[in-house]
């Protein structure tokens, strides 16, 4: 018990120290090495962030981007998991759908931005489409890999314990693939951040990416850095929350231990 408490303290301490060093190095680089308005030190960026937060602008942009990510991510997972399970379970389905997955996974979501905007407009439609697109293939591939990785003896054992094929799927293949599914979802979440910013940079009327693009037009370097800082923080927090949720709710199925 005591040692696990110590481990936890060391872990958190390490994190704080690591992040603190990031800011210290940033400060030294900006103030003493570069010394240009084009590379603001952390203090200025934080002050700017407080200003933007007070005026409500920052919160609004965060909300817009996160809503797009979460909607697309949820839809993409809901489509990807059953498709992945079907691909992993049935050779016919795999042969039918593999051309799609093997073809589209080499076309990055960022390459689809223009098409998405032409099809779904500059608003929410194109963004959610892109997040679904970036999510669905990773989730499919990981889910299918999970079903494929079930050791044959697990299935043989179930069959000779009297399980039907449907029961083998429900009680063996499905639970055995949960860690793979969750890993796929976590990777997809990371990709969603990349995709949403790229999409908002190119064509959007709101969001963190739009905020960066607008700031570029008026040379508001501080504001660009605020957006970058927020992005890093959001990505980190979302991933930690996801890990925590997996660990807490998935328990025995958890890929993170």
């Amino acid at each position, binding site marked *: 018990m005591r040692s696990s408490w110590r481990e936890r303290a060391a872990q958190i301490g390490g994190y704080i120290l690591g992040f603190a060093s990031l800011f210290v190095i940033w400060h030294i680089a900006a103030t003493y090495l570069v010394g240009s308005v084009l590379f603001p030190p952390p203090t200025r960026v934080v002050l700017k962030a407080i200003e933007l937060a007070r005026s409500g602008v920052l919160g609004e942009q965060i909300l817009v981007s996160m809503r797009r990510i979460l909607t697309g991510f949820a839809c993409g997972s809901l489509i990807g998991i059953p498709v992945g399970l079907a691909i992993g379970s049935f050779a016919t389905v795999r042969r039918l759908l593999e051309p799609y997955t093997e073809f589209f996974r080499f076309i990055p979501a960022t390459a689809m931005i223009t098409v998405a905007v032409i099809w779904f407009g500059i608003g929410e439609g194109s963004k959610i489409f892109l997040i679904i697109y970036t999510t669905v293939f990773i989730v499919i591939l990981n889910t299918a890999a999970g079903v494929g990785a079930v050791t044959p003896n697990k299935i043989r054992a179930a069959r*000779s*314990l009297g399980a039907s094929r449907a029961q083998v799927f429900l009680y063996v293949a499905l639970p055995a693939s949960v860690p793979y599914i969750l890993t796929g979802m976590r990777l997809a979440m990371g990709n969603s951040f990349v995709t949403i910013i790229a999409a908002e940079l190119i064509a959007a009327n709101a969001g963190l990416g739009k905020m960066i693009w607008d700031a570029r037009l008026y040379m508001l370097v501080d504001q660009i850095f605020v957006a970058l800082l927020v992005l890093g923080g959001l990505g980190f927090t979302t991933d930690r929350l996801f890990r925590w949720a997996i660990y807490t709710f998935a328990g025995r199925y958890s890929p993170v231990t």
Partner: protein
Amino acid sequence: MPAPLVRFAGVNKVYRSLQSGDYVALRDFDLDIAAGELFCLLGTSGCGKTTVLNMVAGFEVASGGIIEIAGRAVNGPGADRGVVFQGDDSLYPWLTALGNVEFGLKMRGVPRRDRDTQARRFLELVGLHGQEAKHPPELSGGMKQRIQIARVLVNEPDILLMDEPFAALDAQTRAVMQQELVKIWAATGKTVLFITHDIDEAVTLATRIGVMQAGPASRIKGIIDVDLGPDERDRTNDRFVAVYRQVHAMIHDEVAIAMRRSA
């Protein structure tokens, strides 16, 4: 002799492969196992003994010949034949020991309370009282094999198929598990088909030992009756040593052939 519970008559098994050509594992394989026997199938590695077990289990299909259980042709796996695998990769790590043991009952739709009671009874039988809530990764190799045995026994199969179940255990644990298996076999009266490459293990456990030829195109070379009492199943016992020598003499040439073929 009454009608055999397991019957192989003229069974062939050919593995087809485009790369390396066809491989004949078994040719004209005959074997009868009576109800209530603890039959050890002994052979060198690659002789096809696991193939025999997999065909009884219904995991693999014979290329020709007859395989019958209680007079009926084998058609896929079924709960009448419980399988204990060599490794622990057949256990479900997301379930507790209890969850693993009651798996078969759950598949059959036995109500939760009944299957809980039965699973606990069989966990106790294999000496795992108090370990119900643990998950397989938390248990030792010996305990995991005990879960496998309990999981099969609770399902009340006619035959236990055991594929070198103790081969991955350390020598002390293996000896204990062998004793427990004999006890369980005596208590339940189940028919057991036990695969091993270990002469000592075969003589310790078996009522009869079937020695297989070295592969390919293997068949039974000979069958030895092991007429030893429980207190004679001991390496230092003269009658045990006599049976051991008899089995050893029969398998000795096959080991040499297998060595030459794999070299």
